[in-house]
């Protein structure tokens, strides 16, 4: 029941929100609040599997579900302030809630075709949100996003078909494409088909995740969509796409083919870091800069997964950090844009509170202590060193240093450089500050001490991926 409610509540909320733009903010907060409390309930009392095991909640799914639900709640509170300044349009809240429903379906699906359906839902839900401004540039961005994502989604479907083929003739009681049966019967899977399935799922969902070289939609999409939409994509959509790759890795690892799965994961991870470093340096648009930073962080996610061992734990921790930090940064940048402050400089004077949040976000996103990303990046680095890959560790450190320089130089200039025209400080709405401030606090707490239950959950999720907790 609880599992069905997690999907149905936002779905019904989406249907109920259509039209009536005046009430969108309150409606979003209400539905997001109900969803978040359902997630809290799932933490306290783990729900049983329903629909013949098609829907079930395991640690890996619960991590993604929690991250998406929490980030969505923050974005919903932010939307209250946002909608007072900007027109949202009739479907604004509906599409956001449709994403929440689809993302919840991805998180609780243990049937891989159903997971794919949820993934397609998340892709479609964002299209009208990117096209929010309804001009040529956003049309171009949404077109690029849809064409590239849809090809990725199609390849992921082919990978899912391959996985069904790898199962061969089903024995009695074996359910096709149900994760639990795939994992327990992994030894019987046909290796050639399983390998093909893994490659297609990795490339397909990797396109949605925005791994280089399939990342080309990301800068345009994040650059043109409203800040809260971009934040939700960079933190929430990436988490869902990562779950798709994690599921493929889970099955492949269970079949004893980890040695096949790991090299491509590491390669995509390092390539993404390299592309991010190349494009972050000298970037002139803050949103595009953040998009390349997102390419960097999804690269770290698959790098940790590919290194295995403590790396898988580092990846899970990084998933949580990434959602918090990306939400924080996009919302803070969005505040500057809403206040019509010049992005060229003087933000700390023009929008003091958002400026401070942006400064916190800068240190958090570059993995500086005492923020959470420092810990997760350190864990992934330890996995590289411990696994006997000093060159991977060295490459990762070097690229992270380059990216640090690129991001820091741009954000510091935005904050401190003298503004072209000195404008008086703008009064900032509380609705626009509470959310990002909560995210900043969250990522700080994760850097100081990870709460016990969360640590256990991440360790369980990592062990499903063939990793161990440090």
């Amino acid at each position, binding site marked *: 029941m609880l599992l069905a409610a997690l999907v149905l509540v936002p779905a019904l909320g989406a249907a109920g929100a259509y039209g009536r733009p005046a009430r969108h903010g309150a409606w979003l907060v209400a539905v997001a609040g109900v969803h978040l409390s359902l997630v809290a309930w799932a933490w306290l009392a783990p729900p049983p599997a329903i629909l013949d095991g098609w829907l079930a909640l395991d640690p890996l799914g619960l991590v993604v579900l929690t991250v998406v639900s929490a980030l969505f709640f923050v974005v919903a509170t932010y939307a209250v302030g946002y909608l007072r300044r900007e027109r949202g349009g009739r479907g604004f809240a509906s599409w956001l809630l449709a994403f929440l429903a689809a993302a919840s379906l991805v998180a609780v699906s243990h049937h891989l*075709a159903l997971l*794919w*359906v949820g993934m*397609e839902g998340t892709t*479609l839900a964002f*299209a009208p949100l990117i096209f929010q401004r309804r001009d*040529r540039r956003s*049309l171009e961005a*949404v*077109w690029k996003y*849809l*064409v590239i994502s*849809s*090809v990725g*989604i*199609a390849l992921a*479907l*082919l990978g*899912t*078909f391959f996985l*069904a*083929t790898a*199962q*061969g*003739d*089903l024995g009695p009681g074996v359910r*096709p*494409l149900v994760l639990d049966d795939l994992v327990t019967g992994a030894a019987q899977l*046909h290796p*050639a*088909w399983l390998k*093909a399935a893994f490659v297609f799922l990795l490339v397909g969902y990797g396109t949605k995740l925005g791994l280089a070289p399939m990342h080309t939609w990301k800068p345009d999409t994040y650059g043109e969509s409203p800040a809260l939409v971009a934040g939700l994509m960079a933190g929430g959509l990436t988490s869902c796409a990562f779950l798709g790759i994690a599921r493929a890795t889970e099955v492949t690892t269970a079949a004893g083919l980890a040695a096949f799965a790991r090299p491509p994961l590491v390669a995509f991870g390092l390539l993404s870091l390299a592309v991010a470093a190349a494009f972050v340096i000298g970037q002139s648009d803050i949103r595009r800069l953040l998009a390349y930073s997102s390419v960097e962080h999804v690269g770290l996610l698959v790098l940790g997964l590919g290194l295995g061992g403590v790396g898988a734990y580092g990846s899970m921790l990084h998933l949580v950090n990434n959602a918090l930090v990306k939400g924080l940064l996009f919302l803070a940048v969005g505040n500057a844009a809403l206040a019509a402050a010049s992005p060229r400089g003087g933000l700390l004077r023009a929008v003091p509170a958002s400026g401070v949040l942006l400064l916190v976000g800068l240190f958090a996103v570059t993995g500086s202590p005492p923020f959470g990303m420092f810990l997760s990046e350190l864990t992934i680095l330890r996995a590289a060193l411990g696994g006997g890959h000093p060159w991977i560790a060295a490459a990762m450190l070097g690229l992270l240093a380059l990216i640090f320089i690129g991001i820091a130089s741009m954000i510091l200039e935005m904050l401190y450089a003298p503004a072209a025209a000195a404008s008086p400080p703008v009064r900032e709405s509380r609705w626009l500050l509470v959310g990002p401030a909560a995210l900043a606090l969250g990522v700080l707490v994760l850097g100081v001490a990870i709460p016990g239950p969360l640590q256990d959950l991440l360790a369980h999720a990592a062990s499903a991926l063939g990793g161990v907790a440090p």
Partner: protein
Amino acid sequence: MQHLADLVLLLVLLTSFLILGTTRLTTCIRAVAVQGGLLGVLPLVLEPQWSAHTLGLATGTILVKAIVLPWFLTWAIREAAVRREVEPRVGYIASLILGVVAVAVASAVATRLPVPGDHPILLLATSLSCVIMGLLVLATRGKALIQVVGYLMLENGIYVFGLTSVDRVPFLVEVGVLLDVFVGVFIMGIVVFHINREFDSLDSARLTELKD
């Protein structure tokens, strides 16, 4: 039935080559419609005993892939007034040669992978060829409408592969119909884009008028 299935699969391949080699948009759309119709017939010739499920799949496929989507594409051409011919980044001869390479690669892969069930090996080869040729059209053609046709080819290849698991995994092939939603959204996007462009040019024209 085996020979009939092989014949249908060969015709599917031929329509793909027709799309690669043609210069006219309308021919492309007709070819992809014929391909959709062939795909609708395919489950009927693959399964000797027709169940209600097979019949439903065939009817649904013909309806969506051979009638609705091609009609929608033709409507978009008229609505958006796309008159110009296809402008490829890679020439037609080169595309055809790449298509042959695609079939060769797909056949080489297909012979190495065990074909599930007792399906003909040509099924796997055709499926992978269509996927590769669809990606080829998506990557090399500049026009949005022809890219949609390429996406349909890619999708058709996936559908052909899905037919191998029809009897083992229920509703898996039917899930693929969700990809058609993308096609619908693309076509709407093209129409919106063209309407938008009309508005833009209208606006700028009016601005210069006011200046005079």
